[in-house]
């Protein structure tokens, strides 16, 4: 028994360097942000008062919530379709589909945003193509607005939705659907009453992942919004970089951080989060 615990002691030594590094250089700075948010410029919750009184901030939070909500809904629906197809095609086609998804997943977010700018801007490829075939006379405004931001964000988030949904769908036995059909249900009924409820864990996991990641998303909104669609994360950068308002920037950061953890705490009651984040 003693040997066993000694044994474990030496294994804690392996864990220690990473944990110490993380606590000192990651957790401590985060706590410092929380601390600054209640001490700069004066001690107290003065910065947080602005959350309720400042109508400009209200607008930013509304924009953030709106864009994240739409992005999440679109991503999960589109992701479900792809995951459903993947779970129902032959191995070879599945591999091809998976390859498209993984390649996108791995590609730098900056490059993807750049490509979307190229496609969506006023003199971009989509407008040029539409004008060439005569579908439109004047270019459409596709970027530097919410539309562009949502397109870019859905594109970024899709792999994050498809992968957990697919992992879930792959585990659903086809015999349930077959049984429902055999008992006289139509194809659609079998899907709606049997298959869809069984895929709920995957859908929930994808929804959380996408929503949480959208909340703090920075690059795509900054590039495709062209400064016109200001979400919280971009505003934090503005508050700190252009106006040096540390109190405000840290207050917004802390609120965002609390928001994310609160969301995760709520959903962890329903879903195994460690599985969602791939750490089983």
């Amino acid at each position, binding site marked *: 028994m003693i040997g066993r615990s000694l*044994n*474990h002691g*030496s*294994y*804690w*030594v*392996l*864990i220690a*360097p*990473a*944990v110490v*590094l*993380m606590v000192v*250089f*990651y*957790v*401590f*700075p*985060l706590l*410092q*942000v929380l601390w600054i948010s209640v001490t700069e410029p004066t001690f107290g919750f003065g910065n947080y008062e602005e959350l309720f009184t400042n109508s400009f901030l209200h607008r930013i939070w509304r924009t953030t919530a709106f864009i994240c909500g739409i992005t999440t809904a679109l991503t999960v629906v589109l992701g479900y*379709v*792809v995951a459903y*197809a993947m779970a*129902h095609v032959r191995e070879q086609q599945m591999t091809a*589909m998976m390859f*498209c*998804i993984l*390649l*996108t997943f*791995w*590609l*730098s977010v*900056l*490059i993807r945003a*750049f*490509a*979307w700018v*190229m*496609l969506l801007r006023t003199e971009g*490829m989509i407008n040029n193509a539409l004008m060439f075939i005569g579908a439109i006379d004047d270019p459409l405004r596709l970027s530097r607005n919410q539309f562009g931001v949502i397109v870019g964000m859905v*594109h970024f988030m899709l792999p994050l939705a498809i992968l957990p949904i697919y992992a879930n769908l792959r585990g659903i036995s086809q015999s349930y659907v077959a049984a429902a059909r055999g008992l006289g249900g*139509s*194809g*659609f009924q079998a899907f709606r009453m049997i298959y869809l409820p069984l895929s709920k864990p995957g859908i929930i996991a994808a929804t959380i992942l996408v929503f949480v990641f959208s909340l*703090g998303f920075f690059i795509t909104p900054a*590039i495709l919004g062209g400064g016109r669609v200001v979400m919280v*994360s*971009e505003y*934090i*950068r503005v508050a*700190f970089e252009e106006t040096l308002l*540390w109190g405000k920037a840290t207050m917004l950061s802390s609120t965002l*951080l609390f928001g*994310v953890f609160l969301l*995760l705490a709520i959903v962890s009651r329903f879903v195994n989060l460690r599985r969602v*984040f*791939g*750490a*089983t």
Partner: protein
Amino acid sequence: MTEARLTFGRCMVLGLAWTILGFLVLPMVVIFPVSLTDQYYLSLPQESLSLEHYVKFFTNEIWLSATGQSFIIATCSTIAAVILGTLCAIGCWRISSRASEAVRAFMLLPIIVPTVVQALALYRFWIDLRIVDTYFGVILAHTLICIPYVVITVSASLANFDLRVEQAARNLGASVSQTIRMVVVPQIMPGILSGAIFAFTISFDEIVTVLFITSRHIYTLPKRIWNGIQDHLDPTIAAVATLLIVVTLLLLLAELWLRKRRDAARANR
């Protein structure tokens, strides 16, 4: 009748799925022709194909030094993250108690914290440490960001590894460090390499934190691209992007190969 409708439904779903996948790969597909444009602005090739933007990339001091800096930073962060993350994952796996499970969840923190919040926090602390705009500062930040991905991939590999093999080595008199070096690590090598590829990609592409914690000295490739997109859309960016797509493709293929080996190891058990 039902059968026909079913097939119709299937075709619809399949068609829709491939349309969405087309949407996914579209940006990658359009970058390539643009990078070959003969114009000095961002457009499709007008009269002929040209490699001038690739030449510009390979002869321009600014682009080359940015690539070099990114390479140095990504390599150092990957090495640090792989060592720390692998040891941590092995420790958690071996102890496998409630506390070690909590540690493993805790190590995922950098994935969960919104990037801007993380960047602001690190910047603030890096000022106090006087490591803003230094290689060391960026490498430290990227190591922290990459550790979770190594922990995840190595843990996945360890899940397939029989704990008794490790115990046998210990019982036969091997020390902890000998056991890890000679028994555990060789077994989970595919997982470690996967983690390394992940870490390298993440560090090489990381932009938000770099934007906060660097100013004039450190100019990584993503930072150059970011500035390029903000200033004027130069076709050189399309050439850089194409090169990065090719590199990503190669890294992904390497990772898939490693994953196959990992699955084969699982099947052998």
